[in-house]
């Protein structure tokens, strides 16, 4: 049976991890490669690297980082952040990334999804969608949830699937950072409406939140950052707790 996935997310700036991490056994708290190895050993099923740097060197630095992660880490990983062209994707995949995630560039130019899928295949194209509720409607946002668009979550998600994306990473900006649980109602609706895997993001605070998003939210995977970085939740303990609730996990 296919296991539900637990995915730590690492924010990267200029080749270094940015969000504070609380690992006493880490030699270099800013080294994404070392952190990735630790998460891999701890039982993470997959990793996401989100590059938030905005320098001209960005592409090269990110490609180098991907190369070093692929060299050391034996679980799959996705790279996102500012990816906007076939060339951007090509170099990341060639350097060893398993998947890339695109967000704003897909909203601005939806044809990019088709082009990437045609060139690289659905299996490596993740579309990230950030949304929040405005007057009871889920509205797609850009720039980390700062800029609203005229797109609605469910319509956009359906379009993304039809254009060939292999997976959707849905972040609820209403839940992100609250540690109050994932947006399970919207996630469940997405899962029912679509036929591709959905990764839940935004709101993880407790182990029960993960169980809830897998059962009520019908999510295929759950992504979180700070609860893992600050060791509020240990992945192994989390998976043992999920297993007790009959949720299939890789232990």
């Amino acid at each position, binding site marked *: *049976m*296919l*296991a*539900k*996935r637990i995915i730590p997310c690492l924010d990267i700036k200029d080749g270094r991890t940015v969000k504070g991490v609380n690992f006493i056994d880490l030699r270099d708290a800013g080294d994404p490669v070392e952190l990735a190895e630790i998460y*891999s050993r701890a039982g993470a*099923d*997959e990793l996401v690297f989100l590059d938030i740097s905005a320098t001209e060197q960005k592409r090269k630095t990110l490609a180098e980082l991907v*190369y070093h992660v*692929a*060299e*050391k880490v*034996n*679980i*799959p990983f996705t790279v996102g952040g500012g990816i906007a062209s076939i060339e951007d994707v090509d170099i990341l*995949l*060639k*350097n*060893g*990334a*398993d998947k890339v995630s695109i967000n704003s560039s897909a909203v601005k130019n939806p044809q990019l999804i088709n082009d990437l899928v045609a060139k*690289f*295949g*659905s*299996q*490596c194209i993740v579309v990230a969608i950030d949304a929040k509720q405005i007057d009871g409607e889920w509205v797609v946002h850009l720039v980390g949830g700062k800029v609203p668009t005229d797109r609605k979550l469910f319509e956009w998600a359906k379009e993304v699937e039809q254009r060939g994306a*292999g*997976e959707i990473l849905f972040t609820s900006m209403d839940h992100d950072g609250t540690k109050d649980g994932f947006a399970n109602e919207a996630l469940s609706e997405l899962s029912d409406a679509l*036929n*591709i*895997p959905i990764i839940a993001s935004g709101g993880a605070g407790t182990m029960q939140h993960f169980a809830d998003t897998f059962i009520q939210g019908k999510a*295929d*995977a759950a992504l979180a950052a700070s609860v893992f970085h600050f060791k509020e939740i240990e992945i192994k303990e989390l998976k043992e707790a999920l297993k007790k609730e009959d949720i299939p996990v*890789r232990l």
Partner: protein
Amino acid sequence: MDETYEETMNIVIIDYGAGNIQSIKFAINRLGYEATLTHDVEEIQAADKVIFPGVGEASSAMKKLRASGVDVILSKLEQPVLGICLGMQLMCSFSEEGNTKGLGIFDVDVLRFSNGLKVPQIGWNKIENLKSELFKGLKDDYVYLVHSFYAPIDDEAIATSTYGLRYSTALKKDNFYGVQFHPEKSGDYGARILENFLKL
């Protein structure tokens, strides 16, 4: 000269422009071996071990394989050959993906997952009913898979998984092995499988 065997083993990863082969090379390096990426027919024929990777769409991958000329020699190789993911599927008789004729090494037709399952299957699934020295010393465990098409179970199956239905996650015929999963991305367990192949 047993102690130098690892360094001198000639491992080739077929590079025909279909897929992420860097990760396979790194996985082999982590096991202490070197591997050459090539589509040169003579180099492939001279190798001790041949790895046939592949991701993407079957018919276009098959076109690239034909363009490289590797399709003609692959099924005639006598050393151990390991097809990974789409590589395994192209070693089958036929694939529903783009109605593609395969290399016909494995006598099975590759079909698309249906019945309302989420497609692609992405993530970790368990492999069971393990046979052959590829899984020597290993018990059932999780491997990483990304695929929309599958090989139905036949007598060539050396591992099975369940996704809506039971299907073959690994196949073997003579010196040819195929795995639907990515050993290079399946943690330490996947590394053991890759190592078993290299030690055949």
